[in-house]
């Protein structure tokens, strides 16, 4: 008991040192001089409360630990029906889900459809990064750079050459893949954490270039008025922008409504996401997908079995980048405006958090996490000031509590029933 009391006093002392200056005193400018002012009573109350909490949690650490160990860890896999039933049910469930996703937007408000579109963009990004981080085990902290490449490719091609969204989509993905290839070629020979920093630096370089190459990218002002996607040449605006084009509502003889455009963008996002999920699902089952995972588990064993690690890593890196380019082109089309502000490091960190939270390598988990990460900030609007603070804390807590993620990855395998 005495040891515990000592521990608790020590921890509260540390907490006091940490908070007294940084929270208790606030810097303030008075004219040209810098001055300080004490915190309000309320802030001191918070500091006292925090220190008290630390003290109590140390005193009762055993009780808290035992209480936590009684809390059951979520066993999501148990919720699913048995393997045999599952294989029969699965196609039906997926078909049902797709139908619901297609009908759903016609019944709800515009705002929620817009939010769902954003969630779908993050799903695509998460799935792309999942190939790199989750499957191949390469930590990429500059993933947002490829997203930016995709977005700017579409924006610039549409601005300077008037190319359509559908033509630009593969070009964006291809160009992002090319960037991934060119960056990956030299750096993929590096060890894991070096790679993290180099990709982080690369992300910053792309952002700085976009910010300063004003003649082409518009610098910090970005590019606005990017053309929206069309449905076989039908535009979704009130009047056709180009001569000879007929807007969607006139073609079908219905009244104009701005929500058509939102729903149309959502449906494009659904189709793109399904495409991405399908392709990645196939890839995982191909030899190259198996090689990614093998390389993640043990690089030396892989090399001694004759796998070329550079080719395997490069393929993961390039494919991940092309997915980001895909999502980027769609993002530019949806926003109609892009600027380097949208492609800062925090964005990379959010995508990484989606992958980690969902469970590295697990597609279902990543999709789930992307939905949670987009909807949660909307629900917690009043805490928006504390959003990033809680986000950082969540990453640390997740790593301590459940490093394998919400829905840990399950390998495709067969079990023999004797």
């Amino acid at each position, binding site marked *: 008991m005495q040891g515990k009391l000592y521990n608790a006093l020590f921890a509260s002392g*540390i907490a006091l*040192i*940490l908070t007294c*200056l*940084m*929270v208790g*005193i*606030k*810097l303030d*400018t008075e004219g*040209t*001089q*810098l*001055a*300080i002012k004490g915190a309000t009573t309320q802030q001191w109350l918070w500091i006292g409360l925090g220190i008290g909490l630390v003290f109590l949690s140390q005193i009762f650490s055993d009780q808290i630990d035992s209480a936590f160990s009684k809390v059951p860890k979520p066993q999501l896999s148990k919720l699913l029906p048995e393997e045999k039933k599952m294989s029969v049910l699965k196609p039906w469930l997926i078909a049902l889900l797709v139908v619901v996703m297609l009908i759903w937007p016609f019944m709800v408000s515009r705002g929620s459809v817009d939010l769902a579109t954003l969630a779908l963009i993050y799903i695509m990004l998460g799935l792309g990064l999942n190939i790199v*981080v989750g499957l191949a*085990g390469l*930590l990429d*902290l500059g993933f947002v750079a490829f997203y930016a490449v995709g977005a700017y490719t579409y924006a610039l091609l549409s601005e300077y050459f008037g190319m359509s969204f559908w033509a630009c989509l593969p070009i964006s993905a291809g160009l992002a893949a090319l960037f991934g290839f060119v960056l990956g070629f*030299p*750096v993929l*020979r*590096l*060890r*894991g*954490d*070096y790679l*993290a*920093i*180099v990709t*982080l*630096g*690369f992300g*910053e*370089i792309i952002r*700085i*270039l976009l*910010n*300063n190459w004003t003649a082409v990218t518009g610098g910090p002002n970005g590019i606005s008025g990017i053309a929206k996607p069309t449905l076989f040449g039908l535009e979704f605006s009130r009047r056709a922008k180009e001569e000879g084009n007929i807007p969607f509502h006139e073609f079908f003889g219905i009244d104009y409504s701005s929500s058509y455009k939102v729903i149309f963008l959502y449906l494009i996002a659904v189709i793109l996401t399904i495409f991405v999920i399908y392709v990645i699902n196939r890839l995982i089952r191909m030899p190259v997908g198996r090689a990614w995972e093998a390389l993640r588990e043990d690089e*030396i064993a892989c090399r001694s079995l004759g796998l070329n690690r550079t080719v395997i890593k490069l393929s993961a890196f390039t494919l991940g980048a092309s997915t980001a380019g895909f999502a980027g082109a769609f993002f530019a089309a949806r926003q109609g405006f892009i600027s380097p502000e949208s492609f800062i490091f*925090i964005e990379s*960190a959010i995508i*990484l*958090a989606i992958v*980690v939270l969902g469970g*590295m390598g697990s597609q279902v988990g990543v999709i789930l996490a992307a939905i949670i990460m987009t909807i949660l900030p909307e629900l917690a609007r009043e805490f928006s*000031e*504390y959003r*990033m*603070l809680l*986000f*950082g*804390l*969540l*990453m*640390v807590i*997740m*790593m*301590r509590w459940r*490093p394998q993620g919400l829905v840990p990855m399950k390998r495709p395998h067969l079990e023999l029933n004797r």
Partner: protein
Amino acid sequence: MSEFSLYLLQQLINGLTIGSTYALIAIGYTMVYGIIGMINFAHGEIYMIGSYVAFIVIAGLLGMGLVSLPIILIVALIVAVVISSTYGWTVERVAYRPLRGSNRLIPLISAIGMSIFLQNFVGISQGYRDVALPPQVVGGWTFGDPSVFEVTVSYMQLMIWAATLITMTALTLFISRSRMGRACRACSEDLGMTNLLGIDTNKIIALTFIVGAALAAIAGLLLGLYYGVVNPFVGFIAGLKAFTAAVLGGIGSIPGAMLGGLVLGVTEAMTAAFFPSEYKDVVAFGLLVLILLFRPSGLLGKPEVEKV
């Protein structure tokens, strides 16, 4: 001397100044990496906190009517070192120690989370805006022909050089002579074996975090005074630069971090002489990529042997 060479000399002086502070921060990265093989991503934030604490103390002492600059600076230094070290220790205890021994991506992600947390913690408590401190150490020493180009070495720059030199000497003596320093070197050679020989490796790891944070706090005070401005996001880019410096010199090697910091600082200043200054960050990262390509072990590092 011609105008151009004088201009280059001025850039060299500026580069050495910035480079020596990079070196101070880089040592924190290199020591932690040398012992537990992990990138302490939140280290840049410790530097930022050091800057803030120094500003608070300086502003507070000036507000109380104290005029003696050396006393103000020394008090600010001590308080900044103590508080930053406490932050460094706490980060290690809370976010890294429970994860030791797991997959190497896991502590790194936890560190990124910690970095975002600290940035926003300071942002919420102190505001996200720039905080400016009027220059405290003024004046300088000029030479060269006033009609051509005047090279200035400000007293602030001299102070940074002197402080860096003293700190580096003290650190080198600590690592090479003291018992704790010997334990540190042993840990970086073989952590498991050191533990078997009866050294509390957890204590040594905590010590490296504390020493690294103290050096970052010194850099925070110096750079804070030099630039006169601090905001919650200065740690991110400074941390990135310092990590580049550590890799440049050979990560895990303390003299390497010192050399890498100086080389990076001078390279940046020289680029700023020829290109728009926005591109100096691009050069820093480009340099990192080149070094990793052609000499992955850095300037003074030992090539790593992979053991199966």
